[in-house]
């Protein structure tokens, strides 16, 4: 027989799932069928269509996974057409704290450094925008009560409105933002003792109408004091990102910032080296203005991941002052590309944490009988 009948050509669901189980998620180290990523599988004679539901829209290997799925299913006998839709459902790493629970928020990321002036706010904002560009729902809480810089960096001056006792965050560049800078005039200092800081941060976390968010980034102030303790004792932090510049003077504080999170048992997502080298616009030669290799050294010493180095680019500062983050202002620049990769890596780290069931910390309570 040279021609098979149409029926014997029928593609079975089992056969499709079997070949798809050969596609592995490189971060979670399991196949996409076992991970439950394959959804809405439909077979219409030779046409196969299905969704691949990833754990983040910022998945760095989204395109590779899609290509692999198509290739595997196309290889099946009888398949004429394959349609794969890549979707995402960001899973929560547990945002329930015993003091503060933010119900609609799935992951809380603290961005900290120990030292001031290393570009925490710049990194936090651009990372937030890069995550939002992938389709994720993102919020940014500026926890620097004394020196809030986020409002200027996003070019927002409006006062947040209050709605039925809840504060509506300012929405800019696709992200929901809350900052002390929205509440006090630019030239007026906030002169407060620690307990007031605690009160303000608690309000920002609980009274702001964050709604449904995949990622809430907290731009931490420098140091290891009141704000850091408040956030780590009361807020359900999923993981911390440490920003440093390459030189020892910055590393010495960044190590302390990292140790603080280790002491309070917050998982470290990784280290980001900011201001790592300057590429001359004329000759393309790289000058390591603040020395080089510091971030890598620190990550190695402390046994955490180095998630990337962000070079100096005058357009970063320009974007900060003008209120347009470089990821949006110059999306094709090297720096913007690095931020987009960083967004994927951070999202992947959180997915890995989520997949390790113990990564989801649950607050415990016991009443003695």
């Amino acid at each position: 027989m040279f021609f098979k009948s149409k029926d014997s050509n029928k593609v079975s669901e089992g056969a499709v799932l079997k070949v798809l189980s050969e596609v592995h998620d490189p971060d979670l180290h399991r196949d996409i069928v076992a991970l439950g990523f394959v959804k809405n599988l439909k077979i219409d004679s030779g046409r196969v269509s299905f969704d691949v539901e990833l754990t983040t829209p910022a998945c760095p290997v989204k395109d590779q996974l899609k290509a692999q799925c198509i290739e595997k299913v196309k290889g099946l006998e009888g398949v004429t057409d394959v349609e794969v839709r890549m979707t995402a459902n960001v899973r929560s790493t547990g945002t329930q704290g015993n003091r503060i629970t933010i119900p609609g928020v799935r992951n809380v990321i603290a961005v900290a450094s120990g030292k001031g002036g290393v570009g925490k706010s710049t990194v936090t904002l651009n990372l937030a925008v890069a995550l939002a560009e992938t389709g994720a729902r993102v919020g940014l809480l500026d926890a620097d009560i004394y020196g809030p810089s986020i409002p200027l960096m996003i070019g927002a001056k409006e006062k947040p409105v209050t709605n039925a006792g809840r504060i509506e965050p300012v929405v800019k560049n696709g992200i929901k933002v809350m900052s002390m800078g929205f509440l006090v005039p630019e030239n007026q200092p906030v002169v407060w003792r620690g307990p007031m800081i605690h009160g303000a941060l608690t309000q920002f976390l609980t009274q702001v109408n964050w709604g449904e968010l995949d990622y809430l980034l907290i731009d931490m102030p420098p140091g290891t004091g009141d704000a850091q303790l408040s956030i780590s004792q009361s807020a359900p932090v999923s993981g911390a990102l440490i920003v440093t510049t390459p030189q020892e003077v910055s590393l010495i504080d960044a190590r302390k910032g990292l140790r603080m999170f280790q002491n309070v048992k917050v998982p470290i997502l990784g280290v980001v080296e900011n201001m790592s080298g300057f590429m001359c616009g004329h000759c393309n030669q790289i000058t390591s203005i603040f020395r080089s290799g510091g971030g890598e050294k620190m990550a190695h010493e402390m046994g955490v991941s180095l998630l990337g180095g962000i070079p100096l680019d005058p357009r970063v500062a320009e974007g900060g002052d003008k209120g347009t983050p470089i990821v949006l202002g110059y999306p094709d620049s090297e720096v913007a590309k690095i931020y987009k990769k960083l967004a994927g890596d951070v999202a992947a780290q959180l997915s890995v944490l989520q997949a390790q069931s113990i990564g989801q910390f649950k607050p415990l309570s016991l009443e003695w009988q």
Partner: protein
Amino acid sequence: MAIKLPLAPTALKQLGVNLLGISWNDGHDSVYHVRNIRLNCRCANCVDEWTREKILKDDQVPKDIRPQKMDTVGRYALQIDWSDGHNTGIFTFEQLRSQCECESCQQKKN
């Protein structure tokens, strides 16, 4: 690179009138006489903030002291309300784990 998961309890259990059990995320099960936890409190009322010298006198702690309620603090510690009214102590998971009274931990210490 894999993320190192910090030490965390997965369950708190009352094992007897004065026995507390803590299960950890590395599979270990700890057991404690609750009074020993109270005697090792490191709060500023029980230990001098600067010299770290113990201020608390063991014989001032009732023999029949019991916890009333305990809650985790952030991801790193346990806060306990005690029957003698003391509640300022924050017992870190690390400290609690090092004070485990289970047989194998005790043998390692001796």
